[in-house]
């Protein structure tokens, strides 16, 4: 068992190293190696998961090495890291085929897999931090492999991630001060004194940066435009969500044990709500579909944080389940979006349109994932959102007055998500073909469709059989507490009802199609008369949202990057820096005066 666990780390690492030192020419070899390595890792992760669940009833900590520990949560997350790693490598073998330096690309991907698994199974805080830091490096290297502007966004991403690593380090130092252990499983700190709160916030900021919650989210939309699409699907969309929320779960449930209605719970819920609304509002007005998707990647994190912030079992389980679902549908969206980009050679919405009939498989996968992210039953996104809503309602029972606010934020965010995906599907797949004709409009090679199809299948399976499969296998065991569902969604029955409903509708449609009716073209609820120049391609949907007075102000500020903590920090630091540079005028007497002044000040202090 011990060897099995270590091999899940060592196999991808060593094969990554081999791929790294391969000659640049051997693209096929590097690719084959990566597929084998990631598949082997996936198998090992499955084995770890299976062996663990045999002992499930005895003890939730199954076996312990000195530095590693696998419990239900880490086994389940490692399983999905393995799955996503394999799917992404498989997809990259088609998408990245013509790129340079493929051996390095696969090496970085394999190292990312290795380090991520390491981060979730390490039980020693230092070891965890080491793996976590390595992930920042590989993220930088992977983003930097994109377009010409990629190094700039890679730099931004790394500064935010690496900077938050320093915060985690500080939080860890505080934890170490409060508790004599460095083993994560043995640390239990009540959130009673200031140092504990301080350390929780430091660690939570690290988790926010990784998973992309506001205010540390700004690296995701920036890298979306420049990074290679599989990298976006791999890191910000799936792995970083798994890891960031994993950390948040660990600190808020295992290490600190936050209480409902405490200040920390409120803090998390506020961050979550702001993230949901602000990011989805930004998503509504994007023109670049990768950027639009990336804002949703931010917005969905809000739900997970909101869920965990409720601090009651059902809400936390909902947050965790939403993390899993989000990873599935968001990487499906990025990958099928990547298919579109692969054929159309553009990611600008106004240049796309009418691709559904050329790329049916991609379209269906994309549509399923879109329904899922918008929380439409019976897909998986609905179930987890429903659990989060229940968590909020449970919270209401404990006497807080604010629960209707959280609930309406979550539901409103969900509605806006649906709206923006309507725009996206319309602009890419339906609607008029764009003015500029896409030459190569046909379905992508089969190898690139495997991953989106599998993920779309998971969206359905995790939705329809939610209680039977994902909740029973992954989520409930991870919670270590008993879950009570106040109003459980009986998804299988509902699915049948929905199907029946659709069938009846279809029959009515067939009967009614005898006398059809003229309707005006649907353009996302916009008024065509007011926008006569509007391009019905869909890219312009919701531009009127910008015109609403207060929002207009906010959007403008957002475009000036006034809400970007990175840009603001940069401006502040550079401002101070130019002041200091001005003081360093290079004149010798000035410097000598400093020495004297410094000495005099010290003398005054001491004597």
């Amino acid at each position: 068992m011990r060897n099995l666990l270590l091999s899940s780390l060592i196999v991808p690492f060593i094969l990554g190293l081999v791929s790294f030192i391969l000659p640049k020419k051997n693209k096929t070899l590097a690719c084959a190696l990566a597929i084998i390595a990631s598949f082997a890792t996936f198998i090992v992760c499955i084995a770890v998961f299976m062996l663990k669940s045999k002992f499930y009833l005895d003890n939730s900590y199954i076996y312990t090495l000195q530095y590693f520990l696998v419990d239900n949560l880490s086994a389940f997350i490692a399983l999905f890291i393995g799955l996503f790693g394999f799917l992404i490598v498989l997809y990259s073998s088609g998408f990245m085929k013509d790129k340079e330096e493929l051996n390095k690309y696969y090496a970085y991907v394999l190292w990312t897999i290795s380090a991520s698994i390491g981060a979730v199974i390490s039980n020693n805080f230092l070891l965890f931090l080491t793996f976590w830091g390595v992930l920042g490096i590989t993220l930088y290297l992977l983003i930097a492999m994109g377009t010409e502007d990629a190094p700039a966004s890679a730099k931004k991403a790394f500064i935010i991630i690496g900077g938050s690593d320093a915060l985690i380090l500080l939080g860890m130092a505080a934890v170490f001060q409060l508790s004599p252990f460095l083993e994560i499983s043995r640390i239990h700190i009540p959130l009673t004194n200031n140092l504990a709160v301080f350390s929780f916030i430091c660690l939570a900021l690290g988790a926010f940066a990784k998973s992309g919650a506001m205010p540390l989210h700004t690296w995701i939309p920036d890298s979306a435009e420049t990074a290679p699409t599989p990298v976006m699907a791999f890191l910000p969309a799936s792995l970083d969500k798994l890891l960031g929320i994993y950390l948040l779960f660990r600190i808020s449930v295992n290490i600190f044990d936050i209480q409902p209605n405490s200040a920390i719970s409120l803090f998390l819920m506020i961050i979550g709500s702001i993230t949901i609304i602000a990011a989805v509002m930004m998503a509504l007005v994007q023109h670049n579909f990768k950027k639009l998707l990336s804002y949703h990647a931010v917005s969905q994190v809000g739900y997970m944080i909101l869920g965990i912030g409720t601090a009651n079992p059902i809400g936390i389980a909902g947050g965790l389940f939403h993390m899993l679902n989000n990873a599935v549908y968001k990487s499906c969206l990025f990958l099928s979006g990547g298919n579109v980009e692969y054929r159309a050679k553009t990611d600008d919405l106004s240049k796309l349109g009418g691709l559904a009939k050329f790329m049916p498989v991609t379209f269906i996968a994309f549509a399923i994932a879109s329904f899922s992210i918008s929380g439409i039953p019976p897909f998986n996104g609905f179930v987890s959102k429903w659990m989060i809503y229940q968590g909020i309602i449970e919270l209401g029972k404990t006497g807080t007055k604010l629960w209707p606010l959280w609930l309406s934020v979550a539901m409103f965010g969900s509605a806006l998500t649906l709206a923006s995906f309507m725009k996206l599907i319309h602009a890419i797949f339906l609607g008029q073909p764009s003015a500029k004709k896409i030459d190569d409009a046909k379905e992508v090679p089969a190898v690139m469709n495997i991953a989106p199809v599998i993920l779309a299948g998971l969206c359905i399976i995790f939705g329809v059989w939610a209680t039977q499969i994902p909740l029973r296998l992954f989520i409930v065991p991870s919670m270590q507490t008993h879950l009570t569902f106040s109003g459980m969604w009986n998804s299988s029955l509902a699915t049948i009802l929905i199907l029946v409903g659709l069938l009846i509708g279809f029959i009515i449609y067939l009967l009614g199609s005898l006398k059809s009716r003229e309707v005006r073209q649907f353009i996302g609820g916009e008024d065509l008369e007011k926008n006569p120049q509007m391009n019905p391609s869909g890219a312009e949907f919701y531009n009127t949202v910008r015109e609403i007075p207060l929002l207009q102000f906010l959007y403008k500020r957002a475009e000036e990057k006034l809400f970007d903590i990175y840009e603001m920090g940069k401006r502040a630091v550079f401002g101070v820096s130019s002041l200091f540079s001005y003081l360093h005028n290079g004149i010798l007497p000035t410097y000598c005066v400093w020495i004297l002044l410094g000495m005099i000040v010290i003398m005054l202090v001491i004597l």
Partner: protein
Amino acid sequence: MLVLFFIISLAAAFLIAMFGRKSKLFCHLTSILATLSLFLLSLYALYLVNKSGVIVYNIGGWIPPLGICLVLDGFSAFMLLVLNFISFIVAIYALAYMEKYTDKYRFYCLFMCMITGMNGVILAGDIFNLFVCLEIASVASYALVAFGTEAEELEAAFKYIVMGAIAASFILLGIGLLYAYTSTLNMADISLAIAHKGFNTVILLVSVLFIAGFGTKSALVPFHGWLPDAHSSAPAAVSAMLSGVLIKVLGIYSLVRIFFNIFGVNQIILMILAILGAISILVGAILAIGQWDLKRLLAYSSISQIGYVILSLSLATPLGILGGLFHLFNHSVFKSLLFLNSGAIEYATGCRNLKEMGGLKEKMPITANTSWIASLSISGIPPFSGFWSKLLIIIACVQANRIGLALIAVAGSIITLAYFMKVQKVIFYGKLNPAFDKIKEVPVSMRLAMIVLAVLCLLGGILFIPRILVYFLKPAVSVLLLGTNYAFTVLGGVL
């Protein structure tokens, strides 16, 4: 044996001065052999200290308070190792790098003089010899900064001389007052005298003079005015020595030796050192991020990193001292490496301005990769060496209940990460400047030096393994923790 540290380096300097003008090979051979043997000797010294504790060598057989003595304890052995290792690597690097300068034998002569001075500072058992050796090293470094003899170099050297002289006069004044007060120059004896007479205003005044004097040598803000000019104008090999070891040996070593071992730990002085350290961290880092001259950026970054070392040492807890010394070692390695990288870039492109560079990754893969490793290491990204020392420093700050200092350390490290990412991006990524179309990777000796240091950055974490850490750093830490017990161990045979 301790005298060998002087003899070898000084003899090498003289030999090069006498015979080096004719034969380039002789210069190279002498400098390499001398630095290599010094490096091996310092390894042996570390072994001896671990085996048999403190070694005192009485020159001419005179017993300590009367005669001059050399003292090798854990702290000196550690500093000797850092110094001689870096100088050996820099000597290898200089083989090819100094090709473009004329009068190379003078460079090697001055270089060896500087090493002599620094070895002397570390081994000196009495405070006046410490001062003399400090001046030997400083004067050699003034000349080395001016080595290019262009207007810029001369201006920088002039500033450096003036400020260095001010610092030296403060130090000398302090030593004079101390001598008048205690009637002895032997450091162990001074310590005893102070313990006997009590810690009073005279000592406080001397402390202020020493903080200003040695603070200038170690370039703490606000005493740092000389450093950016001097570091950026000197030849890269010299900058690496200046930043990697000179400011540490002349500044930090002397400060720490005097305040921990001679005067004894004093809370007010520790507080002042902590504040100076914290200011240096922030000011250095903020100044560095605005720079577009590579070497100037690295120079400001040195100020900031020295701040970390002083901050951590000033906590005076076991973990703080361990973190500070470990960071001192790591900083020597990665900052020397970064200066060597900057030298390599200047060697290949002839330019230091970041705005003109770009896309050098393809052309200079070894420089690019080693500098990437050094940048990650200095920014404290795991698993590179800088991470482990930063970890210790932050944990030590929190343990000492100084959350504010810990926050400053974290903020400094975020800014450090930001400016090194800027350096990486503008130099190695992006579009290649057409003017640099024909550049090549640097010669073998420069590559070798960079690779050795990069491997050390990569393996820095290994030093973290307790057993190695104990062997390497524990003697030094325990010397500082025992404080004024220094006097008894040095004078043990006499009293």
